[in-house]
């Protein structure tokens, strides 16, 4: 271990990269940029899908709630890597309109990005759905009754009474799901997306300075993690309702 540590040369980051795009430091930052871009766009997809499916699961209508349950089961029981390969290799072949658009209208780089975004978004959406569902279910049943009794329609009750409080309750778990997306984004390296973990592998391959590369990238992932957690604490404080802690009054 000690001999390894003694041999580290962090100066490698200031050397020009093999693809002549700048220094290796910049090379890694490009990867970080793509990781963040992918994570944020996948999160938007996941949040929307998760909210819809989560709400579906709380409805009394058995057809709708089974559809919601089915979605969650499908996306939770297939490995993420398999789902990614399905989005990248399989769906463009077998789904008509989407497939043509994907194969013909997108550059390869964008193909990787779109496939990864849809994969992470739908995968995480299933997890977000479970949290939205448990958030809504943790509210007292009287809230829904009170809203309905006032003459609000069911959708008004969800939008104006149930969801505003449910979202506040689940902010910590939603943060953790976002961080999961950031970590899971690393699988996109397998289809060639130029995200952070792939850049670290490329750097290692071209300079043989594997340790420096991995240490830097690990530190970057850790940094993103820390930053998001601090931001989330800030959001939690801003959204807190006076006297209402974690669903209890």
């Amino acid at each position, binding site marked *: 271990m000690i001999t390894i540590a003694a041999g580290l040369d962090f100066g490698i980051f200031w050397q020009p990269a093999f693809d002549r795009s700048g220094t290796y430091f910049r090379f890694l930052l490009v990867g970080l940029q793509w990781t963040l871009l992918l994570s944020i766009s996948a999160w938007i997809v996941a949040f929307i899908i998760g909210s819809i499916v989560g709400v579906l699961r709380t409805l009394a209508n058995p057809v709708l709630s089974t559809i919601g349950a089915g979605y969650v089961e499908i996306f939770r029981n297939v490995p993420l890597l398999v789902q990614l390969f399905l989005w990248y290799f399989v769906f463009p072949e077998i789904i008509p309109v989407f497939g043509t658009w994907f194969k013909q209208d997108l550059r390869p780089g964008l193909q990787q990005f779109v496939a990864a975004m849809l994969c992470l978004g739908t995968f995480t959406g299933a997890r977000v759905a479970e949290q939205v569902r448990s958030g809504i279910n943790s509210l*007292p049943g*009287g*809230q829904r*009754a*009170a*809203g*309905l*009794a*006032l*003459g*609000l*329609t069911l959708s*008004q009750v969800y939008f*104006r*009474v149930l969801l*505003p*409080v449910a979202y*506040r309750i689940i902010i910590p778990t939603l943060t953790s799901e976002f961080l999961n997306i950031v970590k899971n984004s690393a699988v996109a390296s397998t289809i060639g997306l130029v995200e952070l973990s792939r850049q670290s592998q490329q750097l290692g391959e071209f300079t043989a300075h594997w340790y420096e590369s991995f240490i830097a990238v690990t530190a970057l992932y850790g940094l993103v993690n820390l930053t998001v957690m601090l931001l989330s604490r800030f959001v939690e404080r801003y959204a807190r*309702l*006076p*006297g*209402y802690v974690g669903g209890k*009054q």
Partner: protein
Amino acid sequence: MITIKNVSKWYGDFNVLKQCSTEVSKGEVVVVCGPSGSGKSTLIKCVNGLEPFQEGEILIEGISVGNRRTNLPKLRSRVGMVFQHFELFPHLTVTQNLTLAQCQVLKRGAKEATEKGLRLLDMVGLQTQAKKFPTQLSGGQQQRVAIARALAMDPIAMLFDEPTSALDPEMIKEVLDVMVKLAQEGMTMIVVTHEMGFARKVADRVIFMDHGQIVEDRPKEEFFKNPGTDRAQQFLSKILSH
């Protein structure tokens, strides 16, 4: 104004309401009492369609509650309901609680809704709490706001589901005072409660329920002086000995 005709309800195999029938006329105050499990809360929740029922009919000003074609939200906006656990919306201020349904359901303008809300807050004695959040209020204060919230919809009748059961004893009076005032102003009310003092003061009729059936349905004086059945007699003696 409100007609309940032969209403029966089952939760699975359990027959929770058995052929319940009664009528409430405009301006009448009807108190519904009975032991726990008698179905009184369930019955009142059937009146505004919060609970479905399998047999019978409930009419509010001629409109059938159980009919699939009835516009239930619209019907519910005309009948106010007050819940045992207040059920104010915790993410909204007191004022916002009062204006939400006015704006969303009755399509009133924000200014008009707020004025109405504040007037009602004044009526229940809480005008200083307008900007507070429900969790910052005591139970009695929350329930009074809940009553104001229901009144803001200008209902033709008010339903109360054990409005004081979740309150500490020292706060019961402030809520009952509001309800008494409401009754004296001529509001049609159905009140599920154990508070016999309230019944004696303002009720017109008392309904006694047991095991899902309406066992007694008599004018207040008759009920208190001489309840017809043994069960009602037993219940009353237990309640009144407090």
